[in-house]
């Protein structure tokens, strides 16, 4: 027996006692894990991933399951032959289990903070009070502000992603040696999956633990794990270092879905936004979620009344949402008047549809620009220079700043609005139908300007429009809303593909009818 391994599986076989043919589902698994390893377990459904590890941790009832072989912890004890009390202690103190569906694992009748404290105090043996503090730290770590409102919430009041991360926080609060994560993000949408991954990465930096991460997404496994085993039909089909296995797939199992998207960090997360205006009965937004990645231009489109503008105002914090979250790099964006809102913590700016109205018409443009500079903390001496450089970058003559908004054309005003936003060095820009009121040639110019600026400064942009052609011209990805729900979230070209929501098809057809040059588009 080798004392180095924190977990070793020797010829593990698992089968149902009731199975008539006596065949095993898991037909002999061998595995060695060093402390600190992060093992990714992949394979198609039914391959035996979850079963193997549930068995190895002693979760399976041996009256129903026939388990043979050994699962050795720290080279000393076979988990499978532990006495019940011993196994319980092991599971309580050494093992952390993150299951697939968080909602089922949380008590709906208890507030989240209470559950966490209870769990922590039980597992770590600390007092309830200490446990509560640890729980609060945990919540903060996963990006949930420990406000009064949040601490009093019940599981169903958290979004799916938040619940999952809460579970992770609970597990990690007891600092286990081994973490078994059984498809923890499969039930979540893409954005939440990404966040869970991020959280785990951060945790890996903080604590050292061994992790077994079961997933059917090779991409996530690649991000988190240094080793991989691939399951297929009850046996280990491949194993080795994560990068090697994924880059040079030998068997067909790994081939499935190896196309891993390039490194993208989410910068803005919109989670499950609901909003109903008091005067209306129907909700304007019904659980809209999407992610904005760093450096990308996301086109948000849809017909009038679909909720785009409301969503943009909720994202920036101008109006409050009924439920849901908007997170900038994992921090909830506070509302516009709030004290926590500052330009460097939340560099999110908006460019309005009516550019002239978005400036105080009694003051010169120079005044408004300087005002923005001062608010962003620029030094006095640099202000003139900064303004000069941004004005020229936006292709405007410098004298224009001496004028008042009403003396300037719509297109120029829109550029000035962009300049003002840029002066505060934002990371996220929300352009709310900024070109709708302009003529075609000006529209194109502004679109190109926006695209250039975004790429130059690595800005992330949410470009709201009802014109799909504009979206196609400028966006890397498109999200389409219909009656308050998201019906499309892919690259703009896919709008014209076949497998889309009927409303999207309607829009695509309508655009084709209006724009005869669709096929000859220069890009």
């Amino acid at each position, binding site marked *: 027996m080798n004392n180095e391994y924190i977990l070793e599986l020797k010829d593990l076989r698992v089968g149902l006692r009731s199975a008539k043919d006596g065949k095993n589902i898991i037909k002999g698994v061998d595995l060695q894990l060093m402390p600190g390893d992060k093992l990714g377990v992949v394979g198609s459904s039914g391959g035996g991933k979850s079963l193997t590890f549930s068995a190895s941790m002693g979760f399976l009832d041996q009256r129903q399951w026939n388990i043979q072989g050994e699962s050795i912890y720290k080279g000393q004890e076979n988990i499978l032959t532990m006495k019940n009390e011993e196994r319980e202690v092991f599971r309580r103190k050494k093992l952390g289990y993150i299951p697939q569906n968080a909602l089922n694992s949380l008590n709906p009748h208890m507030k989240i903070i209470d559950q966490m404290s209870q769990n922590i105090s039980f597992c770590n043996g600390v007092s309830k009070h200490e446990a509560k503090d640890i729980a609060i730290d945990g919540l903060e770590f996963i990006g949930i502000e420990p406000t009064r409102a949040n601490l009093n919430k019940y599981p169903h009041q958290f979004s799916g992603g938040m619940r999952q991360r809460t579970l992770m926080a609970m597990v990690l609060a007891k600092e286990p040696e081994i973490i078994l994560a059984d498809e923890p993000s499969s039930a979540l949408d893409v954005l939440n999956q990404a966040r869970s991954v991020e959280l785990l990465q951060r945790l890996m930096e903080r604590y050292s633990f061994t992790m077994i991460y079961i997933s059917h997404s090779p991409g996530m496994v690649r991000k988190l794990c240094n080793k991989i085993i691939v399951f297929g039909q009850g046996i280990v089909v491949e194993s080795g270092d994560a990068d090697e296995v994924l880059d040079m797939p030998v068997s067909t199992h790994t081939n499935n879905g190896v196309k891993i998207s390039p490194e993208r960090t989410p910068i803005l997360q919109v989670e499950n936004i609901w909003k109903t205006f008091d005067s209306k009965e129907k909700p304007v937004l019904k659980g809209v979620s999407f992610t904005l990645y760093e450096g990308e231009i996301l086109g948000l489109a849809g017909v009038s009344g679909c909720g785009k503008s409301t969503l943009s105002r909720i994202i920036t914090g101008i109006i409050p949402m009924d439920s849901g979250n908007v997170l900038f790099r994992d921090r909830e964006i506070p509302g516009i*008047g709030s004290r926590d809102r500052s*330009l460097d913590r939340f560099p*999110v700016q908006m460019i309005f549809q009516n550019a002239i109205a*978005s400036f105080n*018409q009694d003051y010169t443009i120079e005044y408004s620009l300087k*005002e923005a500079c001062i608010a962003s903390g620029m030094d006095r001496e640099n202000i003139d220079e900064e303004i000069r450089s941004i004005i020229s970058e936006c292709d405007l003559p410098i004298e224009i700043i001496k004028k008042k908004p*009403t003396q300037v054309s719509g297109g120029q005003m829109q550029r000035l609005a962009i300049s003002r936003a840029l002066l*505060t060095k934002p990371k996220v820009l929300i352009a709310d139908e900024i070109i709708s009121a302009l003529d075609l040639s000006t529209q194109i110019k502004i679109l190109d300007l926006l695209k250039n600026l975004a790429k130059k400064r690595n800005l992330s942009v949410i470009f709201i429009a009802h014109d799909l052609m504009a979206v196609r011209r400028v966006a890397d990805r498109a999200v389409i809303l219909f009656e308050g729900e998201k019906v499309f979230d892919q690259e703009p070209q896919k709008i014209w593909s076949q497998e889309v929501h009927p409303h999207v098809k309607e829009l695509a057809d309508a655009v084709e009818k209006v724009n005869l040059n669709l096929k000859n588009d220069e890009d």
Partner: protein
Amino acid sequence: MKKVYISMGIIFLLYILTMIISIQNPKTVNMGSAFLPTSHEHLLGTDQFGRDILSLMIYGFNRTVSVLLAAIAISMIFGLILGICSGYFGGAVEVFARLFSDISMIIPSFVLALIATAKFGANPVTIGIVLGVCDIGIYSNQTEALTKKLKDSEYIQAVELLCIPKTKILLRHILPKVVGPALTLMGGKAGSIVLAYASLTFIGLGTDTSAPDWGTMLYQYRTYLIDRPILLLWPSMGILILALIFYYAFDNFKMSRSREELLYE
């Protein structure tokens, strides 16, 4: 704006002048010169006590303008502050502001003025303060409504997004736009303040009935309505003209106008 500068300038100038220069002591009684018509010495003639009416008018003007200044200052300054804060911040401030303005408008200013003079003596400033306090509500209501409307406008949203500090927003982006309508309101109310003061002095508010107020003059000359109506003419005209000047000056007042607006004026 121009008419404001001119008219207010004139009034203010006269106000200062009349404080410094005294033409003839209006209290000088000379029974022998009663009811004299217009002459070099008495540009407006004399009254039943031989007092120079012009001097009486001038002093009355001075005291009336004092009342006006005090009332306007109090009601506008506090009305604007209260209105802006309650409109922008809402919540407790709004509740308080509304309560205060409701109360101040319910309490009859007249009665309050009488009570105040009983306590503090009948001088124009006191009366002005009381009248001003009673009018705060009107300014605050209007300002609050305007501020609320402005708060929803895009330029305010934009400026809030830029994290410009609230004091700056209130002072630079809201105040200039609410002052105009407040001043217009003031122009309309100036007349009623002048009239209120005249009424107070008419009923003999002051213990010193020889104090040269327009209202007092009206009281003292009322018996001569049929015989010598011209006596009543002067103070009445004074009230009318003063009120009209304010009304005219501040009608549709705007802080600044762009060249285009001036073009279409």
